[in-house]
């Protein structure tokens, strides 16, 4: 299995979820993260002091999929998350050595 890990815009999350569902991917894990890619930083001010915040909120969507379905998942995410502007995000596909279902303890392939 592979863990398809996508960093996307939070406002596209609903679309990505829908697109994954449409392809039959139900299980997923979502984390609120902050990130930066090509986007420039922004300087913040705290009572006259300055702090730099260049990390905008993003959503990390993780979907464990069988090896043969990685492309399908990538395509579903890409088309649903895309706005065409900088900041649309990245997908990292991580290899999974083993997957276990906690409820049963059984190994999933």
């Amino acid at each position, binding site marked *: 299995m592979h863990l398809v890990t996508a960093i996307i815009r939070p406002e596209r999350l609903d679309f990505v979820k829908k697109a994954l569902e449409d392809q039959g991917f139900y299980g997923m894990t979502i984390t609120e993260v902050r990130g930066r890619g090509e986007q420039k930083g922004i300087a913040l001010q705290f009572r006259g002091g300055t702090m730099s915040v260049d990390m905008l*909120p993003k959503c990390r969507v993780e979907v464990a999929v069988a090896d043969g379905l990685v492309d399908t998942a990538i395509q579903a995410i890409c088309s649903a998350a895309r706005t065409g502007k900088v900041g649309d995000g990245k997908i990292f596909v991580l290899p999974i050595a083993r997957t276990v279902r906690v409820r049963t303890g059984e190994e999933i392939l």
Partner: protein
Amino acid sequence: MALDTGATAWILASTALVMLMTPGVGFFYGGMVRRKNLISMIALSFIAFALASVQWVVAGYSLSFGPDIGGLIGGLDFLGLSGIGMDAGEGTYPPILFVMWQLVFATVALAILTSAVAERVKLSSFLVLGLLWTTLVYDPLAHWAWGGGWAMSLGALDFAGGTVVHISSGFGALALALVIGKRVGYGEHSFEPTSIPITLLGAGLLWFGWFGFNSGSALAADGLAANAFLVTNTAAAIGALTWLAASWIHGKPSSLGFVSGGIAGLVAITPAAGYVGVPASLAIGAVAGLLCYGCMLLRLRVGFDESLDAWAIHGMGGLWGALATGIFASTAINDYPGLLEGSTTQFVNNLLGAVAAVVWAFGVTFVIAWVIKQTMGLRVTEEEEYVGLDIAQHGERAIT
């Protein structure tokens, strides 16, 4: 008559209560916007408060309560509050207290208006807009209804500001939202409220402060003030329960709906609080809860991004309240009979006062907003809107 320290004490306390409504509005709306605009939304109310405060002591009070000019506006005799005394003289409370008392009404009206530009307004533009709005929309309406203007002469009743505060800000918000346009992405993806508990806090402060708003409007510590207090609470309670019930039928009864109904009830009883009794307040509040809920559904169906619903709740609730005052006003409470006691005149007067306020608030706000839009611009850039106003306008973040 002479200084009544009890009345003065209650007006002082009520003024403080009403003042708290302005932060209350900030938290109420703040909880409903996205996290990236939470600070901005709260700050807009605070800024509205300071802005209208200064305008009021400089010119606003005079425009509203200066010697009447043609029924339309007050003269500039009290500019900078010159000539406003600390001595009650023939009155029961100090004239200077009346200035402060009326001030907090002007501020809360402007705070409500901020909802229309939520998550997209340029701060500098809001400062200009706010100054113009309080001067050109609020002050004339205050003069008409309370400062010796035509509506007051006509006999239109507005006990605590259903027309002056709520119709003005509600229909002003409608115009403003039309001019500024919807938020980027509205209608495409969902906008999750950042924190319902913050909204509930705001609602709690509003409900609390509203007792000053309505009961203090008796400008006395007497039975009328007490009655206003009780009918205010009753209308709010039943409004909250009816909205809860109505929204339950449509799905889950949200706490946001519940407090929205409460505020609808509070708005609607505002003009009536000194003229009606408890049974009428049950009717007024219940109708307000249902009506404003319906107006919100209508707005949603139309897909119009006046999403904090100042129009649905304050505008339409205020309009209903103005009419309801004309209907339910009772001589058992005050000197004025309403439609139910056979006085068509009262109802018509109130109708006229309310319709004129709707037209003025909508029209003038529209023009002000349009002019600002054409000149300095009303909105932040699309990029700033994306980043959020907290960072873009204030350099701050709500959650680290």
